């Protein structure tokens, strides 16, 4: 192909070879850029997802070669009374934890959205527990709730109330776990709500006041609806995290006393890494996965119809 350059001399344009074109192409560049991430995620996420499903169809003790048992693990799960009680414990925990932490955080965020003296200190106090690890939280609360010398029992004693067994009482242990996880996670919800509250233009509340709304009425009719997206996010997020509760249980009660704090993931841990029923553990994991998926979709669906998004 010849092109006539302005000077009158002709210049020949040679098309680069296939390989050169390929090397320079966007496609190769794109894939080169995503390659490391793709490989890592493929190996450590995508493959495990599939492999977990395979495992759940096996009897596998993680050491010796495994053999396939079809859906036997799932059938066993359905009949397993320990699994059933783990599910009950997890649901109980979730159903109490989520409303307390979400609504508690809403109230706190409203309180922290003031410009009173010392507000920065109060905010800091609320956020700090968030950076402590689950292990630290567990250890601290083990002491606080100790039946003999814990601070909480001391305070109860000081006001004349009877001493409690707390984490050693099968009827109280789960609620103690609720308390300690709310303590540890409240700050996250508060941060989200505070950010959302600060996104509401002050003019709207002034307009509501001019329109005759009391502060409470304005809160209910204006603030709460506009916090809808944040609330939905926090409910979904908290639920997902609650269903996956593990660390605090391990550190404090190891699923006891009398199995009263055995939750799904703890049961999984026991089955897979203490009794070496790898296949069974994988089945538990998949059931949990599906449960989380369903719960999340239901929440999102309910939320979609009722939550207003300003775009």
């Amino acid at each position, binding site marked *: 192909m010849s092109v006539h350059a302005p000077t009158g001399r002709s210049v020949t344009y040679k098309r680069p070879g296939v390989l050169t074109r390929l090397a320079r192409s966007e496609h190769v560049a794109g894939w080169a850029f995503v390659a490391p991430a793709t490989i890592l995620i493929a190996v450590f996420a995508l493959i495990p997802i599939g492999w977990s499903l395979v495992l759940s169809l096996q009897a596998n003790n993680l050491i010796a070669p495994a053999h396939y048992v079809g859906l036997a693990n799932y059938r066993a799960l359905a009949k397993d009374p320990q699994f059933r009680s783990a599910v009950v414990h997890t649901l109980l925990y979730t159903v109490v934890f989520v409303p307390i932490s979400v609504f508690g955080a809403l109230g706190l965020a409203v309180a922290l959205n003031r410009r009173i003296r010392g507000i920065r200190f109060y905010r800091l106090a609320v956020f700090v527990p968030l950076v402590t690890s689950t292990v630290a939280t567990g250890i601290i609360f083990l002491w606080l709730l100790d039946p003999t010398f814990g601070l909480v029992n001391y305070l109860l004693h000081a006001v004349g109330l009877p001493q409690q067994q707390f984490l050693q009482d099968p009827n109280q242990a789960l609620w103690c776990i609720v308390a300690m996880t709310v303590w540890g996670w409240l700050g996250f919800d508060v941060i989200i709500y505070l950010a959302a509250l600060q996104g509401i*233009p002050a003019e*709207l509340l002034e307009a509501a*006041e001019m*329109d*005759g*709304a009391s502060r409470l009425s304005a809160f209910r009719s204006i603030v709460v609806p506009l916090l809808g997206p944040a609330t939905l996010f926090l409910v979904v997020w908290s639920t997902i995290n609650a269903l996956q509760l593990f660390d605090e249980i391990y550190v404090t009660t190891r699923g006891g006393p009398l199995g009263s704090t055995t939750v799904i993931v703890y049961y999984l841990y026991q089955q897979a890494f203490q009794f070496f029923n790898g296949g069974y553990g994988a089945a538990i994991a998949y059931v949990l996965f599906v449960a989380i998926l369903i719960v999340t979709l239901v929440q999102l669906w309910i939320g979609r119809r009722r939550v207003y998004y300003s775009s």
Partner: protein
Amino acid sequence: MPGVVLEEVTKAFPGGTVALDGLSLEVADGEFMILVGSSGCGKTTALRLIAGLETPSSGTIRIGDRVVNDVPARDRDIAMVFQNYALYPHMTVARNLAYPLRQRRTPKREIARRVQDVAEMLDLEGLLRRRPAQLSGGQRQRVAMGRALVREPEVFLLDEPLSNLDAKLRVQMRAALKRLHARLDVTTVYVTHDQVEAMTLGDRIAVLSDGRLQQLGPPQEVYDRPVNVFVAGFIGSPPMNLLRGRVRDGRVSAGDFAFERSGLADREVIVGVRPESLHPSVDGMPSLDFHVSVVEPMGDEVIVHGSVAAELANDTPGEGESLLLAGDGERAAAVARLAPRDRPAEGSVVRLGADPAEVHLFDADSGQAIR
């Protein structure tokens, strides 16, 4: 019975800013009062004080015949249209309009009737089911007004409601507002920085600057007889030409423009000539040489920018500062409005004159008008 009264109202914010300094103002019942001034002059603060969104540092505020200093905003029987409309984004137009009525527990049938009335009045009927995000700027503005009107309040407050609209819409809405006021006859206080709105809409206008009232009166009076240099320079578009001048032996002069005026002591003055007062010079009329730089044909007139052989005056004096800029004899920029047939060529020099009766004189130190 006056609609709204402000008595020696002062508002100082923590941090030291004094937004209003001893403002006294009386709005008659049913009057359309405009508070006008540039940003920071205190007009919005004054409005918010009347609304009850702020409390005065000192002074009294009366609505109707009661003192409302300690009365919360929701109990003052006033409605406000915010500059950015403040429509509730998650509610439909209908619910936005109904909101004030629902907050006061108005019976449902009454709510429906009033919402319908207001929607008809403001041409919102087709939009009742939409959300604010789906409305244009002009539509949102009407919804904001509707929400204020639906309560049939004693006082109607508007905070620069037209400033977010495009020029054409603004003109339409000005007329619509005027019609609305004529029909409803509600005491209205309207804040704007646009002096055209002030002139066209108000029964009376209050010109504010630096938290103080500069002049209060009907628009024509403020235009014809400004009490000080600030008001003179603020009202009127294009603004009045303000030139350094002096009075000597009964003769006023500014550059090459001079005329006789008796009964004046010798002093430095500011000579103010409105662009529309300048005409092609006629014998006997005091005149000056106008060096034309830019000509803007507007269709019905031409606006001529140029310079005159005088010095420019500073129209907003600071503390102790004289109104006259220390000059070095440069020519002052000036503007004239001429009929299209008198259109000069750019770069030419024309002789323009003004009737001395239309020339304003201001004391160079205080800025006050000299009659």
